[in-house]
C-alpha cells in the first residue's frame, strides 16, 4: 500500500488520509471511506459523513475530488440517527438555521467539480455512496493532501510534540535523507515520526531496487502510545517505512525485532541518524556505541558516521546529555535553541476619515489632517456661541449621524499602510537541541588496507572515454605481473606502491613517473595545492 503522504494521485481516493482545511491552523485529518465502520458514522443516508463547524461533508463528495479542491458542505439527513440528546438538539438547530438561509440550489450542483482531470468522473461514480447528496446553502472546506506539517497541527495529542521549526532543523542537521536509517525514541504522538518518514523515504520496499531503503525505527515504552503510533502507520500507509517497537530503551537498547515470525531474534537497525526525545537521553547513550561489552551487535550503521540529536526542555538535561556524549566518544557536540516567529501581516488604518470604523486608529493621518480637524472644531465652537439652543440640538443630531455613517463602509483592502509584526502567540522556548556525531570505527587494519590501496601514487584513469570492458582488460594485463594479496583481495595498486617506494618520505608529490610505462594514455591529476575555490 502506498501512502497519500508520499505518493498521491491527482484526486483523493478512498482510504487516503486527507487534511480538511477549515481555517488557518485548523484542519481535520480524515481517512476517506465509503464503508460505515464505526458507530459514529451510522445513520446517515449519505454514508460516511464528517461534520465540522463549517458544515457536513459526506465522504462521497470528497472521494474523487482533485486534491486542493474546495468542497461544498452538504445537507445531510440525520433523521435516523440516535445520537446523544445534546448533539441531536444542536444538529437540529443548525439544520433549521441552514434551511432558513437556504437559497434555491439545483441538485446537479452537488456534483460540480472544479478539476478537469480525466478519470475523476469514474472515481466519483465508483466511490460515491449511491445517494444523491444535496448541497447545503453555505459552508465549505478545502481538501488538502496530508503532509507532516498539516498532520502535526491536527494530530491527536498524546504527549508534547515536536513542531515544524524544530523538526525541520533537526532532520536537516542529522542528515536524515532518502535512504537514511533513523532511530527515534520515544514515538510520543508521532509528530516527528511522520516528518522523519518523509525525510528518509526512497522506496516502499527493497524490491524497488534502491540501494538502501530508508527506514525509521520508532521506540516507545508506553504501551498505548506505541499501539496508537503503530496503528497510525498502517492507516497512513507508512508501515513499510516506519518500524515501531514497544521498548524501554534505557533498559533494553535499540536492537529490533524486524522479523515478525521470529520474536527472539533481534537485529541491528544499522542507524545513521538518531533522534532522542526522552526525559533522560543520557540513559540511552550507552546503548548507542560502536561496540558493546556484552557482545551484542551495535545498533549503528558500521559504514557511516552517525548523527544524533537530543531534545530536552531543561538545561540540566542537556548538560547531562552532553557529558555522557563526551564520555562515549561523540564528536562535534553542539547545543542550540530554536527560536521561531510567525509574522502577522496586516493593514493599519490611521486617519480621521476612518473615525468610527473598527480596527482603525482614529488619529490624524498627518499634521495637515489634524489642522483641518482643529479648524473645524474651532469653527463649530464659534457657531455654537452664535446659535440658539434649538439649533444646538439639531447639530447634535447631525453629529450622531456623522459618527454612524462610516460604520456602513468597509476598510479598503488596498488602503491604509501595510505593516507586519510578530504574532501574539510566541513560543519562546521549545527545547534544547544537542547535536553530536560519532564517526565510523576505524581500526589499525582498516588504516593499513586504506594505506595500501591509496599508496604514495596512484594512477588516474584517462579522460578519454573507454568502455568498462576495455578498462578491465587493461587493468588485468597490468596486474598480471605483480599480483598482491591484501586482506584476501587482489589489489592492483600494490604494484604501483612498490615502484613508488623510492619516493617515500620525500614528502613531495611524485611527478609523472617514467616507470609507469603502461601503454594507455594517462591523465595525471595536478596537485591541487591552492585549488581553493
Amino acid at each position, binding site marked *: 500500500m502506498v501512502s497519500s503522504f508520499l505518493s498521491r494521485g*491527482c484526486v483523493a481516493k478512498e482510504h487516503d488520509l486527507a487534511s480538511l482545511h477549515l481555517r*488557518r491552523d*485548523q484542519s481535520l485529518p480524515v481517512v476517506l471511506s465509503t464503508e460505515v465502520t464505526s458507530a459514529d458514522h451510522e445513520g446517515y443516508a449519505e454514508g460516511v459523513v464528517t461534520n465540522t*463547524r*463549517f458544515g457536513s461533508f459526506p465522504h462521497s463528495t470528497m472521494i474523487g475530488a*482533485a*486534491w486542493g*479542491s474546495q468542497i461544498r458542505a452538504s445537507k445531510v439527513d440525520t433523521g435516523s440517527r440516535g445520537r446523544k440528546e445534546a448533539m441531536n438538539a444542536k444538529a437540529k438547530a443548525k439544520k433549521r438555521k441552514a434551511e432558513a438561509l437556504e437559497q434555491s440550489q439545483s441538485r446537479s450542483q452537488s456534483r460540480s467539480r*472544479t478539476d478537469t482531470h480525466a478519470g475523476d468522473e469514474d472515481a466519483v461514480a465508483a466511490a460515491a455512496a449511491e445517494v444523491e447528496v444535496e448541497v447545503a446553502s*453555505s459552508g*465549505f472546506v478545502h481538501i488538502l493532501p496530508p503532509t*507532516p*506539517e498539516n498532520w502535526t497541527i491536527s494530530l491527536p495529542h498524546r504527549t508534547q510534540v515536536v513542531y*515544524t*521549526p524544530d523538526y*525541520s*532543523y533537526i532532520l*536537516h542537521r542529522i542528515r536524515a535523507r*532518502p535512504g537514511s536509517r533513523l532511530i527515534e525514541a520515544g514515538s510520543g504522538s508521532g509528530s516527528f515520526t511522520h516528518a522523519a518518514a518523509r525525510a528518509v523515504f526512497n522506496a516502499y520496499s527493497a*524490491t*524497488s531496487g*534502491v*540501494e538502501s531503503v*530508508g527506514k525509521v525505527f520508532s521506540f516507545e515504552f508506553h504501551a498505548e502510545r506505541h499501539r496508537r503510533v503503530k496503528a497510525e502507520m498502517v492507516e497512513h500507509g507508512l508501515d513499510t517505512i516506519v518500524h515501531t517497537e514497544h521498548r524501554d530503551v534505557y533498559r533494553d537498547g535499540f536492537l529490533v525485532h524486524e522479523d515478525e515470525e521470529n520474536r527472539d531474534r533481534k537485529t541491528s537497525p544499522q542507524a545513521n541518524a538518531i533522534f532522542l526525545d526522552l526525559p533522560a537521553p543520557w540513559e540511552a547513550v550507552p546503548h548507542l556505541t560502536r561496540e558493546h561489552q556484552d557482545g551484542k551487535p551495535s545498533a549503528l550503521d558500521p559504514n*557511516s558516521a552517525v548523527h544524533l540529536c537530543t531534545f530536552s526542555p531543561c538545561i540540566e538535561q542537556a548538560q547531562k546529555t552532553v*557529558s*555522557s556524549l*563526551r564520555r562515549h*566518544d561523540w564528536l562535534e557536540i553542539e547545543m*542550540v535553541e530554536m527560536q*521561531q516567529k510567525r*509574522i*502577522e501581516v*496586516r*493593514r493599519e488604518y490611521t486617519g480621521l476619515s476612518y473615525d468610527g470604523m*473598527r*480596527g482603525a486608529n482614529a488619529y490624524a493621518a498627518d499634521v495637515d489632517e489634524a489642522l483641518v480637524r482643529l479648524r473645524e472644531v474651532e469653527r463649530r465652537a464659534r457657531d455654537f456661541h452664535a446659535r440658539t439652543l434649538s439649533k444646538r440640538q439639531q447639530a447634535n443630531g447631525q453629529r450622531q449621524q456623522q459618527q454612524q455613517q462610516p460604520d456602513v463602509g468597509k*476598510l479598503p*483592502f488596498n488602503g491604509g499602510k*501595510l505593516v507586519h509584526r510578530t504574532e501574539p502567540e510566541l513560543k519562546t522556548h521549545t527545547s*534544547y*537541541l544537542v547535536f553530536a556525531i560519532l*564517526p565510523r570505527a576505524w581500526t589499525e587494519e582498516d588504516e593499513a588496507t*586504506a594505506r595500501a590501496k*591509496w599508496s604514495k601514487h*596512484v594512477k*588516474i*584513469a*584517462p579522460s578519454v*572515454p573507454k568502455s568498462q570492458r576495455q*578498462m*578491465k582488460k587493461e587493468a588485468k594485463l*597490468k596486474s598480471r605481473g605483480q599480483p598482491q594479496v591484501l586482506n584476501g*583481495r587482489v589489489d*592492483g*595498486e600494490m604494484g604501483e606502491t612498490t615502484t613508488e617506494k623510492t619516493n617515500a618520505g620525500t614528502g613531495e608529490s611524485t611527478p609523472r613517473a617514467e616507470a609507469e610505462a603502461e601503454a594507455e594514455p594517462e591523465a595525471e*591529476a*595536478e596537485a*591541487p595545492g591552492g*585549488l581553493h575555490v
Partner: protein
Amino acid sequence: MAFATIQPFQYVAIRLPSENIRVEQIVPNGQINLGKYGSFHTNQIIGRPYNLTFEILDRSEAQDGKELRIVSAAELHAVALVEQAETEDAPTPRTDLDDTGAQSTPKSNVNTHDDPTNQKLTMAEIEALKQDDLGSGKGLIEKIMQSHSTLDQKTAFSLAKYTLRKHKKYLKRFCILPLDVPTLVDWMMADREFSKIMEMRNEAVALVGCWANIHASDPVISLSEASQSSRYLVVDDTGGLIVASMAERMGILHQQHLEDGIAKIEEEDPDEQAEQPEVVPLHKDKRQQHRQSAMSAASNSITLVHTNQQPNLSLLRYFNFDPNNPTPSHPLYTNLRSLSWLQLLEPESDLTYQEPEVIAPEELANAKSNRRSAYYRKRRRWERVKTVVDETRAGDFNGLIVASYTDPVSILQHLVPLLAGGSQVVVYSPSVEPLVRLADLYSTARRTAFINAPAEEKRVPSEDFPVDPTLLLGASVQTARVRQWQVLPGRTHPLMTGRGGAEGYVFVGTRVLPAQGKVEARGRATRTKKTKALTDPDDEPSQLSFKKQKIATGEAVSAHTASTLPPSNEDLGVEPMIVEQNGES
C-alpha cells in the same frame, strides 16, 4: 551511502584549528597546503572515514608512509573531560581520567593555571619550538608539560587542558567533513560571501524544504501509478543552493556512483579499483555510456526557471555537477531540467524551441559525418527543449520554491497556476518586505474583494490583483533562528556573539482549486454573539488558535452573487475586523 569514506574527486570541507573551513577537491596524488598548519597528501585521507581529526606528523614521526595520525575522541575532549571529572559526580568510564583524581579542587587549579610565572617557556621559546623538528602541537605540549614546575599527577590533565586551550592554534590538526548542503551553508556563512546564497541559513534551508514538502519518490510506484511524484518547480538566485538542497532531499544530489562503481567492480575484477572512480567525474562524453538523455526524468525531478539564457548553478560543482557540461552519470543529469522565462512564457520567441529543418534520410546518408552529427545534435537539443518546455507548461507540479531577487509577485503570477492542487508554495527572502507584500496580495480581504468584484474588474494581473488571490490558501510568513550555546561544566551559556545580517523569512501558501459557481462561507458572526459564544461547546479552542476564538463566534453567511468565485471561511467573521482578516491570511 555517499559519505561512507572520503572518495577521490569528492569535494570536502576541511576544518582547521582556527575553526575556519576550507573546501577542497580531493584529487588523488595531490597535496593540500593548510598554510601554517602544514600540508598533507590527499592519498593519506582518501578511503578514510569522514569526521575524523587528523594530526600532521613530523617527519621524524612519520613511518611506513604514514604521515597523519588520527586523534582520538578522548584526546579531543581532554579539556572538557577533565572539567567534567572535576565537577560532576558521575564517574567517567575512562580509567586514565579517573586516576587523575576527581578530588582535585578547583582552588588548586586556579593556582596552577592562572599564575603565568608557572609557565617556564616564554613565547619566544614557543616560537623557537615551532621552528624545531618537534614542530607538531603534541611535541610542544609535551615540552611545556615537562618544563612546568608544579606539574604533578593530580593536575596532569588540568595542565593538558591549559596547554591545549592556550596553544590550540599551534596544533597541526584538521578535520575532514563531508561537503553536503548543511556544511556548504555553514561554510558560505562563515567564510565566504554569504550574500551569494542570499544569506540563507540552515534554519531557512530546512524550513523551506519541509514546508515545500520536498521528498523523494519510489522509483517503481512513480512509474506505474498515475500518481504525481515529486515534480518540483524552482526559481533560484542562490547560485544553486536551493536546487542542491532540494536534490539532497530527493536523493539525487550525492553521487553514489563514485563509490558504487568501485564496489561493483570489486566483485568482478578488483584490478580496476583505483581507476574506476576517476572515470566518472573526468570524462565528458555522454551518450556512449548512458542511454538516458539529459533532462529526461519526469518524476523525482526539479524544473528550474531562470532569468538569463543559462542558469547560474555554480555551487553544484561542489557536488561534481557542472550544468554547462553535465556528467551523465550524475543523477541531476536527467533529473534537473531547466528553461528560461522566455522559453516558458513565449516559446515561439525562443530559437531553440523551433524545430530544425528536417533533412531527408537519403541526403543525410550522403552527408559528411560532421554535418550529420551536427544535424543530430541539433535535433536532439530541440527535442529536449521542446519536451521540457511543453511538459512544464502543462503544469501539475507538486511544489514551488522561490529564492530570487526578481519580484516574487511576478514569479508567482506565472508559476502558481502551474501547480497541482494541494501543493505548497514557498518563497524565501532575506528581508521581510517582499513577503509582507506577497502575504497582503493573498490576504483574505483581498480575496474577498476579488470574489465580489464585478466581472470586468476581475482581471489578473491588474493593479489591485497582480496575482489571483483565490489560488493560494493560508498564506503566512515566518522566520526561525537558532541560538547557539556553550555547554561546559559550570560555564553553560549562550554564545556571546553571533552573526547579524539578514534574518531570513519564509512565505508559505497552499495551492487550491476554488470551486466554480457560488459558494457561501459559513462561520461565526462577530460582535453580536460574542458573549454567547464563550459557552458554545462547539467553540473548543484548537491548540494553535485559541485566541482567535473570541473573534470567530456566532454564525454568519456572506452573500455572493451567483457568478462569483467563493470566499474562504476565513472571510467570515472578519468583515469589520481588519486585524483578524490579515491574521487569517
